[in-house]
């Protein structure tokens, strides 16, 4: 027999162990995400479009090659062509791929006034921060971005004319996916909150304790355990055709996606709201009824405000679930990453954006981790703000739980 002290110490140590294990796992996840994703994290990623705009151009007739002197600082990754008056740098784009970026164009350089070979405005000019994809020459091998800036400058210096210059704006940003996520949160809550809160009020305030209502409650609880991919299938089979019929949509779209998410969220919202309605003391109900208020007045004017913080918690949990859900959305909206977001068009949320980066060949773990950091940050901000709001609200109504 162990003596009591040793036994107690053993129990105590087990709790310490459990705590450090959970903390360790959490730190490992956050550490992994930060180590991998931190170097791609910058404001450009959040503000830029995903699709880059490509331009093709050639030189204006009567261009002049010259000795373009410049006084710019040249670091070790930058190469300058005096002949063409342009400086190029080896860099990585927002997705971590190697690209050649224009860092300087001399004001008299022939590259400042280019003919547009595509459709649109007639003239183009090469400016700072554009990425050069390739430069093609007459009767010589083309300069490609995959061979690096030094190679491109050397080839450029050896030529006196350019047949075609292909360059693009910076792409790979996640602006569209962030907007999609915000749309999804708003729309889903519009669908899910009234139904969820209403169902919770019915179950807790109006429903009699009979077999039908007990069954209803059990069914709702069972819904929590259904894997989200099955909801996704249901969204594809039911909500997508409905929205195609009612709106101008042609396939999966944001509305069908938020309807699917709303169904996923219902059990969470009902459960959490019901729990918070349960803890409202019965004294409130009796007092309200005794003052002459009707049952409906009691529920909506007295009980509901007291349960506000519980509903807020339900909303927070719901938003967390919306931000994190990907499996259902892959079916119900689709996976194409878009920059212009329409409610009746397909689009990708941040979580689906990660999914899509990871199914690329090769998988882009760095960018996925960066998006994960952004998601973690969003959830943290939500968490804190909901806590602050509910604290203020509770003080205002004098409700404490």
């Amino acid at each position, binding site marked *: 027999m162990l003596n009591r002290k040793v036994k107690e110490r053993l129990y105590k140590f087990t709790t*310490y*162990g459990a*705590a*450090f*294990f959970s*903390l*360790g796992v959490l*730190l*490992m996840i956050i*550490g992994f995400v930060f180590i991998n994703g931190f170097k791609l994290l910058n404001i450009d990623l959040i503000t830029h479009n995903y699709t*880059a705009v*490509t*331009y*093709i151009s050639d030189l204006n007739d009567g261009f002049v090659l010259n000795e373009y002197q410049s006084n710019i600082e040249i670091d070790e990754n930058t190469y300058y062509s005096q002949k063409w008056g342009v400086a190029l740098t080896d860099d990585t784009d927002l997705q971590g791929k190697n690209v050649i970026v224009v860092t300087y164009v001399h004001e008299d350089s022939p590259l400042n006034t280019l003919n547009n*070979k*595509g*459709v*649109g405005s007639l003239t183009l000019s090469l400016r700072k921060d554009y990425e050069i*994809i*390739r430069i*093609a020459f007459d009767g010589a091998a*083309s300069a*490609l*971005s*995959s061979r690096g800036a030094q190679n491109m400058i050397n080839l450029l210096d050896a030529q006196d004319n350019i*047949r*075609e210059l*292909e360059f*693009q704006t910076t792409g790979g940003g996640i602006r569209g996916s962030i907007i999609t996520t915000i749309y999804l949160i708003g729309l889903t809550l519009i669908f899910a909150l009234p139904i969820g809160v209403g169902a919770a009020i019915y179950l807790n305030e109006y429903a009699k304790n009979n077999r039908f209502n007990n069954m209803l409650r059990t069914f709702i609880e069972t819904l929590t355990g259904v894997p989200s991919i099955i909801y996704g299938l249901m969204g594809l089979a039911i909500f997508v055709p409905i929205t195609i019929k009612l709106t101008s949509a*042609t*396939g999966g779209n944001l509305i069908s996606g938020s309807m699917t998410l709303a169904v996923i969220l219902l059990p969470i919202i009902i459960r959490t709201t019901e729990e918070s309605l349960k803890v409202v003391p019965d004294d409130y109900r009796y007092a309200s009824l005794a003052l002459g208020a009707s049952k409906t007045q009691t529920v909506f004017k007295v009980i509901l405000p007291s349960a506000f913080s519980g509903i807020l918690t339900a909303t927070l949990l719901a938003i967390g679930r919306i931000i994190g859900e990907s499996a259902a959305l892959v079916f119900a909206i689709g*996976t*194409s990453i878009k920059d212009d977001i329409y409610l009746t068009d397909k689009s990708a949320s941040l979580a689906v954006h990660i999914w899509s980066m*990871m*199914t*690329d*060949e*090769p*998988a882009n773990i760095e960018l996925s981790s960066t998006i994960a950091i952004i998601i973690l940050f969003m959830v943290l901000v939500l968490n804190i703000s909901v806590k602050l709001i509910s604290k203020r609200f509770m003080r205002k109504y004098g409700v404490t739980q």
Partner: protein
Amino acid sequence: MKKIKGLSLVIILALGFMLTACQSDETFNTDSNITVYTRDTTSGTRAGFMGGIGFAEAESSDDVLVEGFVIKDNTGIMTSMSTDEYGIGYVSLASLTDDIKGLSYEGIEPTVDNVINNTYGLKRPFNWMVRQAGDYPSQDVEDLVEAFVAFLTTTDAADIINNAGAVALPATQTWDDIKADYPITNQDNSTVTLRFGGSDSIQKVAEALTQAFVAKAGNFVADHDHTGSGDAYKRVVGSQKDESVGKDVGFASRPFKETELEVDGTALDMDQYGQLAWDAIVAIVHVNNPLNNVSAEDLKKIYDGTYLLWSDLISE
């Protein structure tokens, strides 16, 4: 004070836990079993690899492979090879990174230059397929697809393909030479959407190609949805062509099967499909593995189970 002590103990233990989870051993034991990784039978990479090493039976059947092989997708093989010291797998050259070791094949290093000068032997074709004439959503789409297919044979497209890590077929004419034949490319096409799909190994190349061609052809919208070589036929001319997943251009990272060159017994037009590039496949191992070079015969013996231990292959 007691609180701080408890908290710091928890943090120290947590850090220790993280450190032990990250540690790895540095020595390579050649007496270990070889863990064989492979793609599944629908993969174009697998067809190219097995065909390339002279083990064609394994292209579409798992039964002939060594016992205990592991099936993973492309990313799965890459991550396994950075953790499993005794594994061997294969990926497309464009996927190769510094975290894993790409083996030379028959003494030739797997580099883009060696594929371009045609000395590296383990490669597979990248193919395209388009819809039947008259079977497009609109005339504009049909004309643009026709122009895109013509673009694939130009030096401009060859540059883009090489730039994206694949190896282009030889080309002589430029887009400037032939663009007068495709007047559709001179108008504003920003309301026209072309749907591209098929092999996900070709996705990077296909996206680079459409990005370049969009600028040349009136800024049409290129919608990419790549799901695997098998879907190239299915969604362009096969059973799913009229569903919402239907595509206008499909890509396959392997030769088309004979059943994929006909619809209901009628052969496809010769100009409905073709090759756009070559891609090299590289056998990969963990960075600690002393092996540097491998022959087709070695690989076949590993995959059919003749070689079970690394010492069968590494003599020292």
